[in-house]
């Protein structure tokens, strides 16, 4: 049984090439988007750093949710989401640098509420300034990022430490209990951050006059389903290279069901956010949808629905596709790309305004993908791929849907 991952030279090369593409795009962007065009440079960075941070954080959420639900099926590949979640500290640092430059770098094209003159002249912004101000933004960002990194690293450390424990029932109970406590703590933080404040301050405040109570859940659904797709991609990759002996198509089937269900969940939130605003037809609320549904962004808005709802719905409906490695890889890539596109149409219409071919954003995205591959592959080598002392390991091995 191959239990110790060794990074294949090809994967390493791929990750370096992708990171090189990202870096090159960044440099080209730095030259191409100067002066008044620099909005696009920062919008692209904000979109990519927040998207990729949140989809890796979805792995921590996966561990926390399955642990609290006393799930046993995921133990055979639990080290995969653990390794993905270890990309959170690096991506959090990147995002922190980006948003701090946006808030304190003397520019108001992304977040126009940072300009005190705008706020003074604007009744709505004045009223919102108790919440939307530099101090609150910074403190909330530092606290959430700090807590995410703390819980993610703690879960990973605990899991590796447990490899040195034994298989006695008391040890198993202790293991479950302390995992439950940490995961419970994380979920409280996660709900209050990704489920509430974080998407408001990072992304929704681009359109500072507009608000939607659905927005955070919408962002969560988007990143959670892409996070599941990311986990599936790594699981299939390891399986295809002879690792993860205990993972069968039964586990893949469950991951496929998750992707299917949460694609529908995303659509539910997509539609709920739209319909209430469409029905009420109030100018301050429809302002967000004006450029997206009736303006230049109309094709992207509906392409979004096609890629993220219709495709997974019809493709993953059949049992055979959820159990097929190639099919799952295909749909996982489609889902990640689709939700990346979703983030693009969340950030760009309010900042860049005009619809242009997103070569810059996409190049940066490839760089982030390379970075994630590099970090995760590195982390996978740091521990055995099967947590051999977990009390639910047997349940995962005999898992049958």
């Amino acid at each position: 049984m191959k239990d110790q991952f060794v990074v294949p030279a090809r994967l390493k090369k791929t990750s370096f090439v992708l990171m090189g593409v990202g870096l090159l795009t960044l440099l080209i962007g730095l030259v191409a988007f100067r002066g008044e065009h620099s909005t696009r440079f920062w919008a692209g960075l904000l979109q990519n750093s927040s998207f990729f941070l949140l989809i890796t954080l979805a792995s921590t959420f996966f561990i926390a949710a399955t642990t609290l639900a006393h799930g046993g099926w995921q133990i055979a590949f639990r080290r995969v989401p653990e390794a993905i979640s270890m990309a959170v500290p690096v991506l959090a640092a990147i995002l922190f640098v980006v948003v701090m430059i946006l808030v304190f770098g003397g520019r108001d094209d992304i977040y126009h509420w940072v300009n005190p003159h705008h706020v003074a002249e604007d009744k709505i912004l004045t009223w919102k300034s108790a919440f939307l101000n530099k101090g609150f933004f910074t403190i909330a960002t530092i606290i959430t990022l700090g807590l995410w990194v703390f819980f993610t690293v703690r879960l990973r450390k605990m899991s590796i430490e447990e490899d040195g424990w034994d298989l006695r029932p008391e040890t198993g109970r202790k293991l479950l209990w302390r995992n439950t406590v940490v995961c419970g703590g994380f979920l409280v933080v996660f709900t209050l951050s990704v489920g509430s404040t974080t998407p408001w301050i990072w992304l929704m405040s681009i359109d500072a006059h507009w608000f939607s109570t659905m927005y955070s859940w919408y962002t969560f659904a988007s990143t959670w389903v892409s996070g599941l797709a990311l986990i599936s991609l790594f699981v299939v990759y390891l399986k295809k290279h002879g690792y993860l002996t205990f993972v069968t198509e039964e586990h893949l089937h469950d991951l496929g069901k998750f992707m299917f269900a949460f694609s529908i969940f995303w659509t539910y939130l997509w539609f709920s956010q739209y319909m209430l605003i469409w029905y009420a037809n109030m100018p301050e609320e429809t302002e967000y949808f004006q450029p997206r549904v009736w303006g230049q962004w109309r094709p992207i808005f509906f392409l979004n629905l096609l890629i993220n709802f219709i495709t997974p719905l019809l493709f993953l409906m059949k049992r055979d596709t959820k159990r097929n490695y190639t099919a799952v890889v295909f749909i996982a890539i489609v889902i990640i790309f689709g939700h990346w596109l979703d983030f693009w149409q969340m950030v760009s219409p309010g900042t860049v305004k005009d619809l242009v071919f997103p070569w810059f954003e996409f190049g940066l995205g490839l760089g982030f993908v390379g970075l994630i591959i590099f970090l995760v592959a590195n982390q996978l080598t740091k521990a055995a791929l099967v947590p051999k002392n977990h009390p639910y390991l047997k349940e995962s091995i005999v898992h049958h849907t």
Partner: protein
Amino acid sequence: MAVKKFVVGLFDDEAVLFPAVKKVRTAGYKLHDVYTPFPVHGLDHAMGLRETSLHTAGFIYGITGTTTALSFMSWIFNVDWPLNIGGKPHFPLPAFIPITFELTVLFAAVGMVYTFCYLCQLMPFVKKHIFHPRQTDDKFVMVIEVTEKTNAEEVKSFLAAAGAQDINEQKAEAGWWFGRWDKDDEPYLRKIQTTNA
């Protein structure tokens, strides 16, 4: 349906039942059904049952619901009784979506429940023969159909060798039927012929 001849065997344990089911299939006997007190994982594969088509039926019912809702609402608001509601267009698609969704779910769910009942031959007032009083209790009951190619005595000794108890031969209606158990079928009153070999 038809009245057929069956050989019935009672099993105590899943672990005995599983190899017996596999042996029945390799021996070539016609397995009528296996009744268990709880769902047994993998028994359907061991019995050689094909994958159910219930999900395909569900998809078709769902699509029917979607079409019904969309076409009916469009007909009402555009043709039969056009009303101006809050200045919305006569074909307000977003407003239709919740109802379309509900009707899709309703059609799929109700349709699948009835199809499931039909496939399992379950319906109020409809009865099926009970091969052994404890088949609805805590025992595993295996029923083998006696065809013209099968020798009943041979099946009995085969079942006994596989670990079954209370082996007996019965003539019974194979499908579902309207009626009353106390008049038409008397599993509780009938004295079961046990031929423990």
